[in-house]
């Protein structure tokens, strides 16, 4: 099937299998390897991307569902060679260990900050509840998200 969609601000018009999952489309077809797969069934959040302003598990999204949608992946967080404050904060708070959960974690955090620039610790924990991290115990991740200076959280505009 032919679908049109936007990834990180770029228009795509592709002929794809209707059964292809968004995670595969991003990783295999578009070479965006920052989106990870940890379970393939919506349980770990490693594959989180932002679709129309919301964090979604890209392993559960099939090609037909992305028609006409706007998708942002981890690769969009850095702008003009400049890491976003959120990314910087993860680095400065030792919130990154093996890093496999990090892209998904950052996208869930970004989706939260886009609608709530002053989240409480509880709101942060809820927003990343679907993102499993086996390394950090989450404390530093929550701290990193909370510490992000409140600023323009719009993305890709």
């Amino acid at each position, binding site marked *: 099937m032919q679908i049109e969609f936007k990834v990180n601000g770029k228009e795509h018009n592709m002929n794809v299998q209707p059964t292809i999952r968004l995670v595969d489309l991003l*990783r295999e077809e578009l070479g*965006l*390897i*920052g*989106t*990870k*797969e*940890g*379970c*393939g*069934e919506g*349980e*770990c959040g*490693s594959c989180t991307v932002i679709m129309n302003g919301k964090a979604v598990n890209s392993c559960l999204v099939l090609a037909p569902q992305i028609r006409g949608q706007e998708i942002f*992946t*981890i*690769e969009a*967080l*850095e702008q003009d060679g400049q*890491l976003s404050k959120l*990314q910087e904060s*993860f*680095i*400065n*708070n*030792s*919130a*990154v*260990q*093996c*890093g*496999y*959960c*990090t*892209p998904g974690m*950052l996208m869930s955090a970004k989706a939260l900050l886009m609608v709530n620039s002053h989240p409480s610790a*509880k709101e*942060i*924990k*809820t927003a*990343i*509840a*679907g*993102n*499993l*991290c*086996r*390394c*950090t*115990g*989450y*404390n*530093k*991740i*929550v701290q990193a998200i909370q510490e992000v200076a409140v600023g323009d959280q719009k993305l890709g505009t």
Partner: protein
Amino acid sequence: MDKDFKYVGHTFPIHDASQKVRGSLEYLSDIKLSDMLYAKLLLSPIAHALITRIDTSKAEALPGVMRVFTHLNTPSKTYSRYRIIPNQEFCLEDERLLTDKVRFAGDRVAVVVATSKEIAKQAIQIIQVEYKALPVLSTPEKALQEQVTRIHPEGNLLYEYEYKLGEQLPVTEDCVVVETVTNTQKVHHAAMETHVCLADFDSSEKLTLWAACQGVFGVRTIVADFLELSYNKVRVIKVPMGGSFGGRQETILEPLTAFLAKELRRPVKLSLTREETIISTMTRPATTSRIRTKVTKEGFLAECSVNTVLDAGAYASSSIDNTYVMSKKICKLYRISYYEHSGKTVYTNTPVAGGARGWGAPEIMTAIEIHMDEVAKSLGMDFIEFRLKNLVHPYDLDKTSQISLGNARVIDCLEKGAKAFGWSKRFKRETDQGRFRRGAGLACAAHKNGMYGGFPEHSTMTLKMNEDGSFILNTGLHELGCGTITSITQIAAEVLDIDPKYISTLEADTEYGPYDFGSYGSRVTYICGACAFEVAKCVKEKLLECASQILQRPIQYLDHKDGRVWVSGDEQHSISYRDIATTAKIKHNTDIVITHTYHGTSNPGAYAVHFAEVEVDTATGKVRVTDYLAAHDIGKAINPGMVEGQIQGGVQMGIGYALYEEIKVGNDGSILNSSLKNYHVLNAPDMPEVNILLIEQGGDEGPYGAKSIGEIAFVPVAAAVVNAVNNALGTSISNMPLTPEKILNALGGKKHAN
């Protein structure tokens, strides 16, 4: 330890953090080679059976399928996944690439190699296998009782030992005798990246393996010997991995993937799904430990007798050593006049057990710390007071190894931790009567620093100075996500007195790098860190010699700082590291490069005491950990931010171990929860804030006094949580995990008893 350091003791992010937050770091699952083929496994759906027929013809006929392998067209030779060095003891060679007799639900029956993942998956589904079922022995009890059915020809009892240490005192009236039985369960390591392996065999007859592993030289010795290749023809390269926790310590997928690449003479990638990773790779071993102690009325441990049964699962892997090391832990923590330990390692028709964070210590420490609370209760003694009477003191000898425990600061951890946590107030609070009951628990723990005392222990590194004064530190290290590369770089930077950004520390590669055993056994900071320290010292000496030649002054008249050397008292008269390196090369025909082997000759204890507060919902049986404090005797924290992260991650894993995590195996050997949907890993809302207290007293041979952290961080957690639940409910549960069901049962039982 008063000296202020420039880099050691300061927090640095993990070395590749900026790539990780960009999503640009290539993990093994991201690497693609041109011409690469994809392999997919067929795993046994049943737990014990002979394969009577396999028909692969349909799969082979599928377009895109290159080859299909089963036991019929692969070597019948066996190997051990655990071996680290040639001729290593207790490495039972009981595994085949593909089996003719399945021994657990998840055993490898066939493999398809195809041009795409999808084709390989389709092909697997059309392989027809006929099995002749055998009786399933799903627990060690069943396997030991069974007279006829043998999982392996040698029988179901894999290993057994018994030893006694010290003098048994004459029986006195004044002793209490307490016995407890603690069960710990199989758990999934749950690294977020699933297992993957990539191999290539090129036209020069060389095999290359890209391995997300904990020890490239271990992988090489197993694979090269299995395929009968000389070691110079096998290159194993450590690549980025999404966590390990012991799950990638053993060589699980590499022999098969290497075989496939060699047969097909093309790169082959074998990737496992989460379900395949849960059931078919490795688990933490399930154990049962029966502990019986005789304790004087004053509260001194007179005798301790332990019996451990460890469920190895279907293949030996590291289980023999794992069982044995469990007997080596308790005497690192407590002074005991007479100690005896007997153990059995048993095959069962369940997933294979293997290395897991803490290697036997979490299992046995959970058992002893639950036991210690029971003893204190029977003595009517305060939990802390009782422990203080028995804990080891600095520089005690480890009774089991006769090696010094070093500056063992567990008493500090207990006393200072208890104060910081407000233990006595929380512990002595009035019992809640309502639906929600609070309780406090603590647990002490001991672990080790490397393998000295039972195994060879050394590490080699090469440090070279570039022409511009920057450095390359070539190592056999494996970054598992714990910050190893960063902390080793900090150590070298401190010695060389240069900003760490001018030192590149390389990870293990059997072809280009020096030898090291690998990242396990809590040896990395203590042993490899000491190697980095010493090699940097040697290089600094050499560069000062060069500077002395250039500046025409004896070394003792030179000062240095921040990458510059000058004549004492005359800072103007200085020379940069860059000028030293370049001049040495050009004018003095000297290359500043040193390879150094550090040989470990000590193995002090690493200690922790953890304190947990929980709230139990007596209506649902659910437990919430509401507060937590972890006190650690770490000697010196090289990178405090990463140390805290190790502890918080250990606590997260340990709470799961105590309360939810278990790979459940049915009576027929089927795996009842093989997905993250029904295998619960702690998420952010479940996780308490972990307060951390570091005791940094140095005093041992680690770099700048540092000791291990990654494994010990996990060791006391489960016992602290279990003890807190028992405190909240007045119960004595010791059968992990403490699921709501078990808690409600215990509460029901208690009401009944009343």
